[in-house]
């Protein structure tokens, strides 16, 4: 069991509109293992298939070739077992549900009792530092607050795997940096495994244990960069090791660009 990967992607390819004139090879020959508790970012130029890879891991798309397994089972089984928490760039909160009810939605779908749901949503609101907003509607909150609720919802049922697709892409720079610190704190507290799609070099460097650089058309793994920043704080952003990591990622992305 100790050798079981959180995510195991083997020889995966994805072709959209196969056999039609607008056929697109999105991904080809992807091999990637992610260990339990790891924080892995996917980065690459647009069209490199990073969101597609995330959706293949989450069984929202089916691979055209190869296999994806999650905690030793098929991605489909993992989805049926509700092992995934998902956060998108668009917070995707339901307007008609109050903030607490949004966080409780996945719990409702698992038939949790009302009392248990209320207790968990309160706990989650504390975790994302919005203890007083359970009774508000999402539209009454700022973009950054909505995204925190979205993270609270994704974590409410303690998913084994958290899939995030540019979750902070629509936020301003300062809110984004605060959210990164928040996310790392929550990640440490919950011990969940995170796959994080981003197009921001500093974001990938700051958050990840490993950064997977993808090249486009079709998407392939160009290189994998290890990050050794230790415990992150706001000061980490001014740390030479942080800059050298960002530089490594940038150079990899430049190499990807030059190869096109």
């Amino acid at each position: 069991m100790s050798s079981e990967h959180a995510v195991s992607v083997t020889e995966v390819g994805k072709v959209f509109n196969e056999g039609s004139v607008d056929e697109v090879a999105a991904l080809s020959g992807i091999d990637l293992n992610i260990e339990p508790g790891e924080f892995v970012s996917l980065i690459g130029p647009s069209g490199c298939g990073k969101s597609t890879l995330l959706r293949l891991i989450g069984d929202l798309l089916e691979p055209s070739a190869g296999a994806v397994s999650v905690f030793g089972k098929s991605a489909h089984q993992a989805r049926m077992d509700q092992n995934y928490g998902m956060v998108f760039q668009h917070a995707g909160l339901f307007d008609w549900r109050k903030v607490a009810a949004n966080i409780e939605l996945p719990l409702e779908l698992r038939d949790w009792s009302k009392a248990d749901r209320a207790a968990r949503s309160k706990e989650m609101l504390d975790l994302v530092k919005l203890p007083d907003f359970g009774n508000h509607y999402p539209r009454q909150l700022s973009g950054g607050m909505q995204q925190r609720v979205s993270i609270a919802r994704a974590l409410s049922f303690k998913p084994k795997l958290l899939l995030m697709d540019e979750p902070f892409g629509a936020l301003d720079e300062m809110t984004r940096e605060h959210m990164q610190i928040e996310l790392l704190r929550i990640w440490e507290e919950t011990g969940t495994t995170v796959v994080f799609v981003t197009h921001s070099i500093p974001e990938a460097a700051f958050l990840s244990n490993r950064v997977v650089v993808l090249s486009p058309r079709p998407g392939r793994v160009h290189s994998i960069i290890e990050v050794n920043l230790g415990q992150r704080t706001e000061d980490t952003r001014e740390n030479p090791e942080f800059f050298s990591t960002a530089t490594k990622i940038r150079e990899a992305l430049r190499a990807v660009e030059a190869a096109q």
Partner: protein
Amino acid sequence: MRSRWSALWPPLLTGVGGLLLWEGMIIVFGIREFLLPKPSSIWAELFAEWPVLSHAGWETGRIAFSGLVLGVLAGVVLAFVTNRFRSLNEGLTPLAVAVNATPIVALAPIFNAWFGITGVVSNQAVVIAVVFFPVFINTAKGLTEVHPDEIELMRSYASSEWTILREVRVPNALPFFANALRVVAPLSVIAAIVAEYFGGPQDRIGNVITSNAAFARYDVAWAAIVVASAFGLALFAGAVLIERLSTPWRMATQVEITNNKPGRGK
């Protein structure tokens, strides 16, 4: 409460002022009553002819209301059906568009021939046909126009299509439906009255208007119009009430947020 009253004042003042201006203009310019009766004369006829008018209002009102309810039901049911069966949608939507492009009230004489001129069905059919289309198109739009992320999120929870319908599509469609209802509620009264212009029993608002106008009793005709617009207004108010009750989140106002910044060690 205070703000509710302050919101009521301007339209109330405008309404009363408008009526006074109307009354005054007729007196000052000596406009003949058969061209435009004074509000006070209309008001007097409203009382004098109340037994006839209230009965006509009831007759037309129940045709409009029942047609409204049936048309709304038909529109909602068809919206669900087309959402469930996409191929049916491709066949039905162009047909519904074609039906909508037909001036429905022009069909009133034909409906009279089909369903009989003495009963309520032919006029009801006109109301149903007018109400149905906006409700169908808007509700169907609300059921389908869901953000793709929201569907992916539900699928990541292993939700069935039925759960997605209940948790996402239906609440998403509610504001669309409420908008349509606000449009068609007063439209149902208009459709019923126009349909009545093409004949039928004499005890309905449309016929009271035409027969009194034919005898130059314009003040009575105007009083009948007052009854009809009061009913249309009541239906509109009902639709607004349904909208507020069914979509409370749309009334929620943005709160002023202080202490927005998370983070630690500050």
